[in-house]
């Protein structure tokens, strides 16, 4: 009896494993067969599979674009993983993935020599705006006011022109790329985590908490903004696609896709596809990013802006 059970289990296991193996073979074989059998496809001579890992904020964009790319190039299979910018940069630097997605420059996360080996491909621009609870009667905050709020010097909205209401900070963890961008370009300095401040990693949770908590202030990428929260102007300038593009609104950052050295043909083709009009004017805009082609200004690692 026991023997039959063991035998049965072994059999099931073997069959399952065999099936898995066969499936894998088929899936990796059939696209290339398709590709070779259908010369009508324009770029179908590309083949291979690679991994793009990193920033969770970029996952949706890269996933959508890779889906379209794979439809066009049946021989290429792209996997997109989200594990954070640091993980993505580490993995591409150690050769575990072909593309490392990051919200920040590699130099800010990795050692200088490791970062030097990576090639930067900037695929979109993300802009970040300070957001507050809709009940707070403030429309504009200056740089100094933001610094005072995020360093804890000002703890009540009445000190920055609002109603008498305690300020509740909804921050990101200190390792977050969004926070790094906000601190660097909106505050111009690093801040400590204050007693009583809230830190959340996901933009969805930040939005929920800012929308629900009285007197809350946080910051979000433009794509997350809606009526449940209120966008405040920065130094009198509203964060829009145009103000970011012409450089008047300073709180923005590139979305990077790093490769180690020059990429392989299929990786290069995908990165070119990311910068093609189809993705730039389609998925990039749709997901609330600003296309690279619109940007009239450029910025380097040190934060210097050039026209």
């Amino acid at each position, binding site marked *: 009896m026991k023997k039959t059970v063991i035998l049965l289990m072994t059999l099931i296991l073997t069959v399952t494993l065999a099936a898995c193996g066969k499936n894998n073979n088929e899936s990796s074989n059939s696209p290339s067969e398709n590709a070779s059998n259908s010369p009508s496809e324009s770029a179908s001579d590309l083949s291979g599979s690679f991994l793009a890992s990193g920033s969770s904020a970029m996952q949706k964009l890269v996933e959508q674009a890779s889906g379209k790319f794979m439809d066009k190039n049946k021989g290429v299979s792209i996997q997109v993983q989200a594990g954070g910018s640091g993980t993505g940069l580490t993995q591409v630097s150690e050769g575990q993935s072909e593309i490392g997605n990051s919200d920040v420059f590699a130099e800010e996360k990795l050692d200088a020599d490791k970062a030097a080996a990576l090639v930067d491909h900037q695929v979109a621009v993300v802009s970040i705006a300070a957001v507050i609870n809709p009940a707070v009667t403030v429309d504009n905050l200056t740089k100094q006011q933001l610094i005072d709020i995020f360093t804890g010097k000002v703890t009540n909205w009445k000190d920055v022109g609002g109603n008498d209401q305690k300020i509740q900070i909804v921050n990101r963890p200190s*390792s977050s790329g969004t926070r790094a961008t906000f601190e660097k370009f909106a505050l111009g300095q690093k801040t400590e985590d204050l007693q009583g401040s809230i830190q959340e990693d996901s933009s969805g949770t930040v939005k929920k908490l800012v929308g629900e908590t009285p007197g809350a202030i946080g910051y979000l990428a433009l794509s997350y903004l809606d009526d449940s929260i209120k966008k405040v102007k920065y130094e009198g300038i509203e964060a829009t696609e145009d103000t970011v593009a012409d450089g008047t609104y300073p709180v923005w950052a590139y979305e990077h896709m790093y490769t180690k050295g020059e990429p392989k043909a299929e990786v290069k083709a995908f990165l070119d596809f990311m910068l093609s009009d189809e993705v730039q004017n389609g998925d990039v805009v749709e997901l609330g990013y600003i296309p690279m082609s619109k940007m009239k200004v450029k910025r380097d690692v040190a934060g210097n802006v050039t026209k």
Partner: protein
Amino acid sequence: MSQSLDRQKAKPHLAEEWVGKIYTFLCILFLITTIFSIVYFVASKGLSTFIVNHVNVIDLLTGLKWLPDGEPALFGALPFIFGSFSTSILAACLAAPLGFCAAVFMVEISPKFGRKYLQPVIELLAGIPSVVYGFVGLSVIVPFFRDVFPGQGIGIAAGALVLSIMILPTITTIATDALAALPKGLKEGSYALGSTRWQTIYRIVLPTTLPALMTGIVLGIARAFGEALAVQMVIGNAPHIPRSLFESASTLTSAITLSMGNTAMGSLANNALWSLALILMLMTFVFVFIVRFLEGRSKL
């Protein structure tokens, strides 16, 4: 006749014996290798904070400031350790009486109804994913606390309440098993001496099963200690020791999950997170030893 049959059967039995032995041995070997590699992996990463980056162990354990990006970088993990202990112990304090009473009801007072309906329902709680608990906490408990108590609703109280529901099945199941395993003679003797049902439960059943009940609590605390996602969503994650139960705080697990993906492997900030993981693992070992100790003292 029967002898010859036995002899014929002897060989397949021997083979079965060996197949079974080797198979089970391989399973155990696989488990032990896994455990040791995990311990080695976490320890080697976690200790490199002290060996490679020369962070003082005492500073890490007693420091109050966590500034991985600061100048100089400070790694004081005491707020996280405090947060982990306070949330999980508070959760156990909330869940233990509930779990005990539910177990007493299911075993002593209304066994038929309890065993048939209550126990499956409570065990269902164990099957709910932690992110669901977290989201319910964020959508229901946090706004409720925000309205009723001073503060923003997030904090140790919200975390402990979410955790207490999560560990309720552990505590209840273990308590139920312990109560059910109590020899009938003890209770019958107590009744024979004229004590009421409450006197029997209070004076005989609970004291005798206490070590087993404690085991359930410690296992519950261990589970709460290691829970990350649900707590992270409702506790606020400020790296400070909070001044009240309704102020943003952090636990070891929430600190790790918040920053692990955002820091590069091998960097100081990342190693410090592994040190937190090492503390977490050592604490879990302590809990396991406490459970073994309690089991040894059990009178059943």
